[in-house]
C-alpha cells in the first residue's frame, strides 16, 4: 500500500543529523526512564531547550504536516536523541487542535503559530475537584463584563501551570445551565491578575501538576474558542488530540525501553538467564504492538475512530509488561530511591506509572468510549 508523501526521509535525516546525536547503545544507560515530568532544579533549562528545539523544528517546516508525512518524520526522529519535548505537549496536541478546528483566524494567528513555534507554552484547565472523569460537571464560571468575561472557580491537577504562558480554560458561561450545555472554552493568560497557581506534590515526590485558583480573572471577548456555549465540542477536540498524543503520537514512553532492560541485564550478569530472555521478549512484543497501533491503528477497517483510545490503553499495557521485566531483571535494586544506583532510576518509572493510567481520561473512561461510541453498546 502506498501513501502519498511529500517529505522524504533522507532530508529529514540530514536535518536531524546536523542538530542531534543519534541514539547509541550507550544512551540506553544515560537517558532517563521517568514517566511524569519532574519539576526539578533543571526544569527551567528543560523548558528552554524544548522551546529552542521547537522553534527550529517549526522554521524547518516540520511542525505542520499531514498524517503520512508526520509518520515519516516521527520514524526518522526516533533514531535521534532529542531534547525532552514534554513541556510542549499540551500546546501542540491539546490547545493546538482546538484552535485549528474551532478558532477564528485572528485567534490562530495570535496563539496557534506561536504555539507551533514553541514561543507560547500552554496548560489545560479542565479538571476540577468535582469534575474529573465527569468533565461535564465543570463549575468554574464566567460572567459577562465589558469587553469580555470575568472568571472564578478552582481547577486542579493542572500539569505545567507553573511555567505555562497560556491556558485552555473550560468554564460555565450560562449559570442556569447544567452538564454539557452552557460550557465555553477560552484562551487565558496565566499571568493575568487573579490567577493563583499552587504546586501539588505528587506521589513521585515531584510537583508537575498544580491547583489553580481563579478570582475574577478578566478574559477578553476575542479569546473565546468557538462560540459561546460550544465549550463541550471544543473540549472533545482537545481530548481526542490528548488521547492520541498520550497514546504515542508524541513520544509517550521513554525511548529505548527494551535496550535499557537488556543493558541492565548485562550489568547484572544475567545475560545467559532464560528467565531474562523471556522478560525481554515480552517487553519487545508489547513495545512492537504499541508502535504498530500508533502507526497502523487509524487505518483499521472498522475501528479507526477508536485508535486513539486503543493506543492509550496499549501504553499502560506496555508499562505493566516493562515493570514485570524490571523487577525480574533488576531485583530489589530497582526499588531503591532514585539516585542510589543506575538501576534505581526504575523506581521513578514504577512510581510514575499510575499517573499515566489516570491522566487524559482514566482507562475505564477510554473503555467506555470504545464500547459506547465505537462498538455501539448502550450508553450510561
Amino acid at each position, binding site marked *: *500500500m502506498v501513501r502519498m508523501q511529500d517529505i522524504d526521509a533522507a532530508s529529514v535525516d540530514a536535518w536531524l543529523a546536523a542538530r542531534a546525536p543519534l541514539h547509541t547503545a550507550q544512551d540506553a544507560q544515560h537517558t532517563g526512564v521517568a514517566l511524569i515530568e519532574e519539576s526539578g532544579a533543571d526544569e527551567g533549562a528543560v523548558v528552554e531547550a524544548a522551546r529552542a528545539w521547537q522553534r527550529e523544528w517549526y522554521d524547518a517546516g516540520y511542525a505542520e504536516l499531514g498524517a503520512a508525512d508526520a509518520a515519516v518524520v516521527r520514524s526518522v526522529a526516533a533514531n535521534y536523541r532529542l531534547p525532552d519535548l514534554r513541556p510542549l505537549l499540551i500546546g501542540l496536541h491539546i490547545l493546538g487542535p482546538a484552535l485549528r478546528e474551532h478558532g477564528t483566524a485572528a485567534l490562530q494567528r495570535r496563539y496557534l503559530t506561536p504555539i507551533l513555534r514553541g514561543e507560547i507554552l500552554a496548560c489545560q484547565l479542565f479538571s476540577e475537584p468535582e469534575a474529573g472523569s465527569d468533565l461535564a460537571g465543570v463549575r468554574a464560571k464566567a460572567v459577562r463584563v465589558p469587553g469580555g468575561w470575568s472568571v472564578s472557580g478552582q481547577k486542579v491537577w493542572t500539569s505545567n501551570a507553573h511555567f505555562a504562558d497560556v491556558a485552555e480554560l473550560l468554564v460555565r458561561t450560562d449559570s442556569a445551565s447544567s452538564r454539557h450545555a452552557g460550557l465555553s472554552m477560552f484562551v487565558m493568560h496565566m499571568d493575568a491578575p487573579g490567577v493563583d497557581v499552587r504546586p501539588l506534590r505528587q506521589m513521585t515526590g515531584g510537583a508537575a501538576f498544580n491547583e489553580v485558583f481563579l478570582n475574577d480573572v478578566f478574559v477578553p471577548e476575542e479569546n473565546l474558542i468557538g462560540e459561546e456555549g460550544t465549550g463541550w465540542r471544543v473540549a472533545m477536540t482537545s481530548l481526542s488530540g490528548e488521547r492520541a498524543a498520550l497514546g504515542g503520537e508524541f513520544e509517550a514512553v521513554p525511548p529505548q525501553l527494551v535496550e535499557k532492560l537488556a543493558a541492565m541485564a548485562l550489568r547484572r550478569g544475567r545475560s545467559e538467564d532464560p528467565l531474562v530472555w523471556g522478560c*525481554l*521478549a515480552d517487553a*519487545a512484543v508489547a513495545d512492537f504492538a504499541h508502535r504498530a497501533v500508533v502507526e497502523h491503528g487509524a487505518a483499521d477497517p472498522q475501528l479507526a475512530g477508536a*485508535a486513539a483510545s486503543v493506543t492509550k490503553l496499549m501504553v499502560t499495557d506496555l508499562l505493566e509488561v516493562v515493570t514485570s521485566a524490571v523487577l525480574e531483571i533488576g531485583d530489589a535494586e530497582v526499588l531503591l530511591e532514585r539516585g542510589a544506583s543506575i538501576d534505581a532510576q526504575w523506581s521513578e518509572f514504577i512510581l510514575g506509572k499510575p499517573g499515566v493510567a489516570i491522566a487524559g481520561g482514566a482507562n475505564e473512561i477510554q473503555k467506555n468510549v470504545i464500547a459506547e461510541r465505537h462498538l455501539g453498546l448502550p450508553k450510561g
Partner: protein
Amino acid sequence: MKLSSRDDLRDIRAALSDVLDAAMPTSAIRADAASAHGYDRTLWAELASGFGITGMHAAEGAEGPLDLDPIWVVAELLGARLAALPYLSTVVLGTLPLLRAERTDAGSEVLGELLEGRLTATSAEPVQGWRRHEGRLSGSSSAVLHGTDSDWILLVDDGRVYGVHDPAGVTREPVASIDLTRPTSAIDFQEASLIELGTLSLEQQDRCRADLLTYLTHECAGGLRRVKDMAVQHLRDRHQFGVPLGSFQALKHRAADLAVDTVTSTAVARAAAAAVNTPAYLPAAERAFLFASDAYVRAASSSLHMHGGLGFTWEFDSHLYYRRAYASTALAGRSSATRCRLGQRLMASA
C-alpha cells in the same frame, strides 16, 4: 475472473469475501471438517484454478521483490471464516519456500503446478529419528497440515528442499486435533523417494519462517475480528434484568478489550507485512505473531464467555474459534521457544 497481485487489494478482498460468504457458512465448514478430505474440494478447485488464489503473489517471470500482500488479504478472510482449505499448506508452506529457493528443474516444475493451483502441497518436520539415505527417507512426522491428501510433501533439511510425491513408502493417518477446521495427519515414511527441489540459504529459511508467522498473524487478526463482532452482536441482542447485556459495564469493558485486541492484532500484522523485504522481517514477524496469537486466545475465550451457556454448546460456533485460537499458538513450534529465542537475540545485541 483470475486474480493477480496487480489487482487492487480491495478488489481481491471484495471478490473473495463474496465467494467465501456464499460457499462457507459455518454449517458448511462443519460438514467439510467431518468429510473425508476435511475441506470442500470443489470450492478449492474453483478458488485455485478459477480465481487463481494460489498464484496471486507471483507475477510471471518477475525477479523483483516478492509482493505477498495478496496472501495476507486471503489469510484474514480465511481466518475469519475458519476455512479448512489447503491454502496455508499449499501457498505458505509450499510455494513460498520454492519461490525463495535456488530451484532445480524439478523444483521449478513443481512450483509452476502449485502456482497454477493444479496440485497441493504441505511440509513436514522431523519428529522421530529421521534418516535420509541415498535419496530415500525413513521416519515419521506427527502433525502434518493437510497431510492426508497433499500432492507434495516438502521437507527442508540441511539447507536443501526435498519433495515426496510417490505414494510408495508413505503411510498417512488422519489425526484428530483440538482444531476441527484444520485437517492434520501423521505420516510415516519408509524408504520414501525424495526429489531434490532446491536449496535455501539460512537467510531464506528465516524468511520462510517469517512468512509462516506473518500468515498466521493475519489469520489470527481475521478470527479475532470475527469473535469480537459475534460478542458485540450478542451484547446488543440478548437481554437480562430487562436490559441488553451490553448495558453492564463489566461486559462493555470486556467488549472494549476485544476491540483493543482486534485493532492491535491487525496493526501488528500490517507492521510485519510492511517489513517483508527488509532485514527486520523475521524480528517483526516473531513479535507480531507472539502478540496476535496470545490476543486471539484471550479474545476467543472472552467472546465465548460472554455468550454464557450458549457459548458452551456444540451447535454454537464460539468453540470452533476457541479451538482454532489455541491450535494456532502451536503451528509455528512452541511459542515459548519463539519467545526465548527472541529474548536471547535481544540480549546478544545489547
